[in-house]
């Protein structure tokens, strides 16, 4: 037998792992370590912290696998563990200021766009792949941790609003309002790079 588990059936892999199959757990780790590391990097903005978060999340998941209910996806569950670990790191670093994904946010001033200019049809083609990754990553890193986490889960990892809400322990409306602000702020940042040459920014009404 070449593979102990059906590769595409996550529920079966999780069930095997819960029965104590170490290979099945290792398979889950291989599937998600890259995404969890990227998420941890975006939240903590520190490679060492992100590596700690990655380890703590998978070791905790392994230890508490019997508590995973199986109603949600394994990925949503481990994201939730990783986000909690990452926020703890942030709190430790900024001990004078609490960090929460549920911070109150102001009511709309930050939604006013500063840069309004049309983009080139395929703006990303003006840059190399490395440059694009740097621009995109830099723009995300300019957001607050709350917005970074919501945006990465929804628009980069492709979780649904409901899954992101579960992973982040937020309400669905809270995820939606953070996602909207994150998208608008990123749009604003990217406009500096991608706007059509010669277009003047015109004032927002």
């Amino acid at each position, binding site marked *: 037998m070449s593979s102990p588990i059906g590769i595409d059936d996550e529920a079966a892999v999780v069930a095997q792992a819960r029965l104590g199959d170490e290979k099945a757990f*290792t398979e889950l780790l291989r599937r998600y370590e*890259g995404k969890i590391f990227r998420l941890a990097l975006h939240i903590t903005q520190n490679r060492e912290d992100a590596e700690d978060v990655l*380890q703590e999340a998978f070791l905790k998941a392994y230890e508490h696998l019997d508590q995973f209910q199986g109603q949600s996806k394994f990925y949503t569950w481990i994201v939730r563990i990783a986000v909690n670990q990452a926020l703890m790191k942030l709190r430790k670093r900024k001990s004078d200021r609490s960090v929460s994904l549920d911070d109150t946010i102001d009511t*709309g001033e930050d939604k006013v766009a500063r840069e309004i200019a049309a983009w080139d049809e395929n703006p990303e083609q003006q840059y190399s792949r490395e440059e694009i990754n740097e621009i995109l990553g830099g723009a995300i890193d300019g957001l607050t941790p709350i917005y970074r986490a919501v945006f990465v889960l929804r*628009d980069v990892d492709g979780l649904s609003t409901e899954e992101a809400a579960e992973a982040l322990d937020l309400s669905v409306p809270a995820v939606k309002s953070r996602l909207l602000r994150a998208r*608008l702020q990123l749009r604003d940042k990217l406009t500096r790079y*991608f706007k059509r040459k010669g277009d003047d920014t*015109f004032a927002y009404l």
Partner: protein
Amino acid sequence: MTPLLTCKQFLDELSDYLDEKTDEALRNKLEQHINDCPNCWVICDTTKKTIQIYKGMDPYPIPPEIHTRLMTALEHKMARKP
């Protein structure tokens, strides 16, 4: 005649509109607003492109040494589990 949306009302609904989560009546109102408001058209179009660009972003390859350290830590943990 349905009342026109303000720019702020348009922006409030932009995420749902781009995710195609609005009902038809609201979608019509939003589309009417973009047709009449060049600024909101630009914001809508560039926000849509923002999401598309990030969707195509490369998955972050995990550095091999970090994968190795993670596996080592996990194997230690597995060995200790009865």
